[in-house]
């Protein structure tokens, strides 16, 4: 019966008119900005994060959730119509989605991706409701060593799944941890690497770093590339998939949901791997694998469901353990901390409204996206047609206002510009931003856990290996770290590979 009372709480929170409104605004703006070329979910959320500071925490996180789902869907729209993936998780959608658009079937492609996401979201929400509370109870047993090992594993998984060189990804994680140590030390109160700068005393802000690395640098890269993309939706007469489309898609949607959800829970990977895995599975089970890559609707339905289920599964480690599984969750963690909410196993008990409200918002948010996007597709297409030379000054302006409005501090604007340049160079020299950001957010938690563990054990590192949960987590992490060196083990999956 616990399940139903939780369900009731979830809906009573999300169906409050103001929460409903914030969820709606989030979905709408999220899709709007997600559709703009070069702005994926990470940039979209960081761009809109400051605007949620003035509302109450529950509404704020619901709105951010809406922005997230909206931006994900916006990414699918650009993948299908322009062959530009809004973010890594919709790279796979380009393969068959864009081909469908070229054959004049952009409507069904967009439709099935919305329906697939909705079905996946619905199932994933139910799964979360079943899994999260018991997991949080287990997590109550966690001490500093377990937390340290878990975060260590999370960072390792992320670098393991990095699309480029694993060494480079590890390097970026180190840089992220270092950046996170800048500012006043929590335990001793000593200033680190601040050089008497007033701005640095509180540490480098998350928002200027993210907006620099993912917003400004994207714009710089686009100015550099300045390619013109062709848009294919000559007419979008029918959005609804036909009965045949449905028959082809329903099993891929269900398979995609399950694959996505369980890969999403794992810290580090999530939506990207889920979408690739789903595509590979669909291709394997299909009777006509040769159709994939030339407009097979299964190739859109499966991955789109998988990435949506994964992005919801990713909420589980955040809401039960306080550990973000990916960059978006890291930003949400930052947002919760700014709202003074303690994230961890006690969240469900201390803030039931927040926890169940977020879950409710996933469900309602998915329904809203479906309702919203059927009539609005035409508008999104028109926005896609705005030429970049006119668009990019406005994107830059939003970044500037967004960062400035957080603390009214001009130095944070300069930090953002600096990280914009750094991000631009990182992309050019093939270093990934995601491990850096995740490590940056985890850094203070990681350091506290490490130092507390060592104090507990009197300086003995074996504390990480003698406690069973911690030992298991560390063992998995070490296996992942050394596995590329072992002979005979297949090369690790790369984000760019398609089996």
């Amino acid at each position, binding site marked *: 019966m616990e399940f139903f009372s939780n369900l009731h709480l979830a809906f009573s929170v999300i169906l409050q008119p103001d929460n409903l409104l914030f969820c709606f605004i989030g979905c709408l703006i999220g899709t709007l900005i997600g559709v703009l070329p070069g702005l994926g979910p990470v940039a979209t959320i960081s761009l809109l994060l400051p605007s949620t500071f003035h509302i109450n925490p529950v509404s704020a996180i619901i709105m951010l959730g809406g922005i997230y789902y909206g931006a994900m869907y916006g990414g699918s729209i650009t993948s299908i119509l322009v062959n530009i993936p809004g973010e890594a998780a919709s790279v796979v959608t380009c393969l068959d989605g864009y081909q469908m658009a070229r054959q004049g079937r952009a409507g069904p492609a967009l439709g099935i991706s919305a329906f697939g996401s909705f079905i996946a979201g619905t199932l994933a929400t139910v799964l979360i409701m079943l899994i999260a509370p018991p997991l949080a109870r287990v997590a109550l047993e966690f001490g500093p060593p377990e937390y340290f090992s878990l975060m260590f594993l999370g960072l390792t998984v992320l670098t393991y799944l990095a699309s480029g060189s694993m060494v480079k990804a590890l390097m970026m994680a180190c840089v992220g941890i*270092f950046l996170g140590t800048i500012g006043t030390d929590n335990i001793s109160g000593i200033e680190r690497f601040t050089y008497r700068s007033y701005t640095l005393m509180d540490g480098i802000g998350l928002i200027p770093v993210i907006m620099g690395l993912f917003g400004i640098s994207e714009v710089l890269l686009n100015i550099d590339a300045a390619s013109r993309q062709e848009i294919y939706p000559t007419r979008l007469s029918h959005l609804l998939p036909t009965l045949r489309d449905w028959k082809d898609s329903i099993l891929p949607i269900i398979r995609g949901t399950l694959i996505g959800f369980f890969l999403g829970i794992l810290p580090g990977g999530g939506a990207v791997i889920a979408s690739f895995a789903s595509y590979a599975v669909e291709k394997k089970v299909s009777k006509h694998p040769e159709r994939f890559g030339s407009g097979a609707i299964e190739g859109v339905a499966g991955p789109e469901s998988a990435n949506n289920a994964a992005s919801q599964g990713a909420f589980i480690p955040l809401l039960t353990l306080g550990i973000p599984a990916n960059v978006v969750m890291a930003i949400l963690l930052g947002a919760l901390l700014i709202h003074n909410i303690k994230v961890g196993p006690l969240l469900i008990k201390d803030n039931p409204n927040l926890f169940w409200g977020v879950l409710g918002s996933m469900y309602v948010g998915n329904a809203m996206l479906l309702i919203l996007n059927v009539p609005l597709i035409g508008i999104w297409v028109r926005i896609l047609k705005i030429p970049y030379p006119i668009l990019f000054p406005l994107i830059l*302006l939003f970044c500037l206002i967004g960062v400035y409005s957080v603390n009214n501090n001009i130095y944070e604007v300069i930090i953002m510009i600096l990280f914009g340049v750094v991000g631009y160079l990182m992309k050019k020299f093939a270093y990934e931003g995601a491990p850096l950001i995740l490590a940056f957010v985890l850094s203070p938690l990681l350091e506290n856990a490490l130092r507390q563990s060592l104090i507990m054990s009197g300086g003995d590192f074996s504390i990480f290996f003698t406690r069973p949960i911690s030992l298991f987590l560390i063992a998995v992490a070490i296996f992942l770290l050394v596995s590329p060196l072992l002979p005979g083990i297949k090369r690790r999956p790369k984000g760019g590979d398609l089996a």
Partner: protein
Amino acid sequence: MKKYDQTSSLVWLGFALLICVESFRLPLGSIHDPGPGFLPLLVGVLLAGLSVICFLQARKGPSAEPKGSWYSTERWKNLVWVLLALLAYAVVLDYLGFLISTFLLLIVLFRFGMEPQRWAWAIGGSVIASLSCYAVFELWLRTQLPKGILGF
């Protein structure tokens, strides 16, 4: 990527050494009670080690160079314009106030950012965009935008 990886890993190595040197100026504490310099030193050493591995891997790797240089030979001037405009914006924002600084920034970006827009377009667009941002952020969302010496 060979040459790029070698160069970039050397840059990171330098950065890592800098982290190590600066961490030594902080109390490192002991292994029983790690101090504030402990973790930075640890990641500094790790980063240095990884940079060396990255450098060595690049040396062994294939020496196929990507065509052309890593920056766009036609567009780098635009990038410099955009960056200078952004920095200038950060410098003058508190003095000139939001409206004037934003108007000037947008003009520069429209004219020199990618493809020069017509002056009429650039000026008109900048006026409309700065006024509507002012309306949304200052008047509606009550963001405290800088007023500047002119008082608006």
